């Protein structure tokens, strides 16, 4: 069997091409609704519950999400499901308690660093804004690459140059409709993409399960150790206890404070809807993990039963494990439906890109450029700067995403670059909202501590038998711990002056 053999035909290309033009048309149509900055960034804070769920899912279920979760399933089997369970419980806990998101929505802010200024002053906002933009933009740096690999696997077109060109064209289309329609355009496209992608994913799962067989899915293939296939904390599983702890702190903090997701809570019509949004979305957070992992698991079972495919994924010149799922889907889905799945995945690619572009560009405008200017920037100037930032980030992504190869796996890269921002942000926002003694110095130490996470994508994290303290998961956990301790010690040793004076009085 040819490794890149596929059922993708001309009709599938037509479906994909027609589908990806729709968002651009929507962007042009809704431009008339954008009259002020809050319309552009938080859709005028007009989102009701169900549309908020659709747009949150549309954002957090991107092509890159499907790729890294499928890769986890392909490499680790059913034990990968634990990441989905942890994330779902964290999101549900946030939804039931309203932890962080309820109070942030009450404050009517548009970005997280806006809260830093409200609580700790302008300098902390600028530092926080720079670190957030840095972590966020680096985090989306490999989206294009993952998208190109998906396309290669599904279409069977193995010339990387042509596919990179195709992905670049798609990025340009995202730029056009995001620059024009802002959050209103993003919300409408997210809804459409939620519908197409969700139905496609459910039907795709039915095909995958029927191909492999329900019984075979829960029996470890002969090529892997049975214990590691099921148990995430067993020795040799590739996860372990430290990894599980890292996932708990990472997914909890990301659930509450990942700017693109939190932006949906801040766009909600009321704080109560912001809270409900998280409780309901816990199911879609579970689906965004488990369904792609299921595809990856089915792909591995399929590959392990096909000697030619198995040999392609083994040895020194083996294919990247990200190819496992798309190659499998390209062989089992019928033409026509494969085009619909590919269109749904492109939709996911676009819906994630648009939200992330909007998130990081609004952070640069609101939290870095505007606070640095002495005179107040008008809404018109801010809109212009935000739109220019969207284009600049897009150009950066083209260069970084198409030519940079990460030394670690896709999910590990995402987790570590996310930690750059999250370790500091989670500590600073939590302390700022719930601890009166939290000070500016403590906040700055916590934010700077997040930069330690960059060590987690260094070349020393790869290879066999590396000591535990050099692994990305250990560096990730320690970054959170150092940020947390930095906030406590910094606040106790260097309290804010106003509070010290109040204490003396």
């Amino acid at each position, binding site marked *: 069997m040819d490794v890149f053999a596929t059922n993708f035909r001309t009709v599938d290309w037509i479906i994909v091409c027609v589908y990806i033009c729709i968002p651009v048309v929507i962007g042009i149509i809704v431009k008339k*609704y954008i*009259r*002020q*900055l*809050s*319309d552009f960034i938080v*859709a*005028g*804070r*007009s*989102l*009701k*519950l*169900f*549309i*908020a*769920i*659709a747009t949150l*899912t549309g954002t957090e279920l991107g092509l890159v999400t499907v790729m890294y979760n499928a890769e986890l399933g392909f490499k680790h089997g*059913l*034990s990968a*499901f634990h990441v*989905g*369970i942890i994330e779902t419980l964290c999101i549900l806990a946030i939804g039931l308690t309203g932890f962080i998101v309820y109070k942030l929505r009450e404050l*009517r802010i548009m970005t997280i660093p806006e809260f830093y200024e409200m609580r700790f002053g302008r300098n902390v906002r600028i530092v926080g804004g720079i670190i957030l933009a840095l972590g966020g933009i680096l985090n989306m740096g490999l989206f294009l690459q993952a998208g190109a690999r998906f396309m290669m696997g599904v279409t069977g077109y193995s010339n990387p140059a042509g596919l990179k060109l195709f992905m670049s064209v798609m990025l340009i289309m995202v730029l056009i409709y995001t620059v024009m329609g802002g959050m*209103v355009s993003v*919300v*409408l496209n997210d*809804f459409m993409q*939620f*519908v197409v992608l*969700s*139905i496609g994913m*459910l039907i795709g*799962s039915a095909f995958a399960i029927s191909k492999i067989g329900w019984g075979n899915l*829960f029996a470890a293939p002969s090529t892997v150790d049975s214990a590691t296939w*099921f*148990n995430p904390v067993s020795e040799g599983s590739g996860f372990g206890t430290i990894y599980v702890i890292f996932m708990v702190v990472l997914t909890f903090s990301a659930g509450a404070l990942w700017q693109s997701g939190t932006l949906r809570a801040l766009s909600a019509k009321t704080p109560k809807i912001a809270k409900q949004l998280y409780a*309901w979305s816990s*199911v*879609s957070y*579970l*689906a965004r993990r*488990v*369904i792609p992992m*299921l595809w990856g698991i089915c792909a591995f079972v399929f590959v392990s039963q096909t000697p030619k495919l198995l040999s392609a994924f083994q040895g020194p010149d083996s294919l990247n494990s990200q190819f496992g799922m798309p190659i499998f889907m390209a062989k089992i889905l019928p033409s026509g439906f494969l085009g619909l799945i590919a269109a749904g995945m492109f939709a996911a690619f676009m819906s994630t890109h648009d939200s992330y572009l909007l998130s990081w560009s609004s952070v640069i405008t609101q939290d870095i450029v505007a606070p640095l200017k002495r005179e107040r920037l008008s809404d018109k100037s801010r809109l212009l700067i935000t739109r220019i930032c969207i284009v600049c980030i897009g150009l950066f992504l083209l260069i970084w995403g198409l030519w940079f190869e990460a030394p670690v796996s896709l999910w590990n890269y995402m987790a570590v670059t996310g930690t750059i921002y999250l370790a500091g942000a989670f500590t600073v926002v939590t302390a700022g909202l719930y601890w009166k003694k939290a000070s500016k110095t403590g906040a700055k130490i916590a934010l700077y501590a997040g930069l330690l996470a960059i060590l987690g994508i260094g070349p020393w994290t790869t290879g066999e038998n590396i000591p535990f303290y050099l692994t990305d998961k250990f560096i990730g956990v320690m970054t959170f711990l150092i940020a947390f301790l930095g906030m406590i010690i910094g606040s106790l040793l260097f309290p804010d002056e106003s509070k010290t004076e109040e204490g003396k009085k």
Partner: protein
Amino acid sequence: MNWGLLWKGVLVFTLFGYALLVIVVIFGGAKNIVDMLRDLTKPADQD
């Protein structure tokens, strides 16, 4: 601990739970979009 049974339960819950959520969101979301566009055409607030 029976990991196989646990993951089987997780998979079944995910597929059925998500299918139900998708149906609810499609109908509820369409109505929400109409309301959102109506809100955005009202006079601007002071944000």
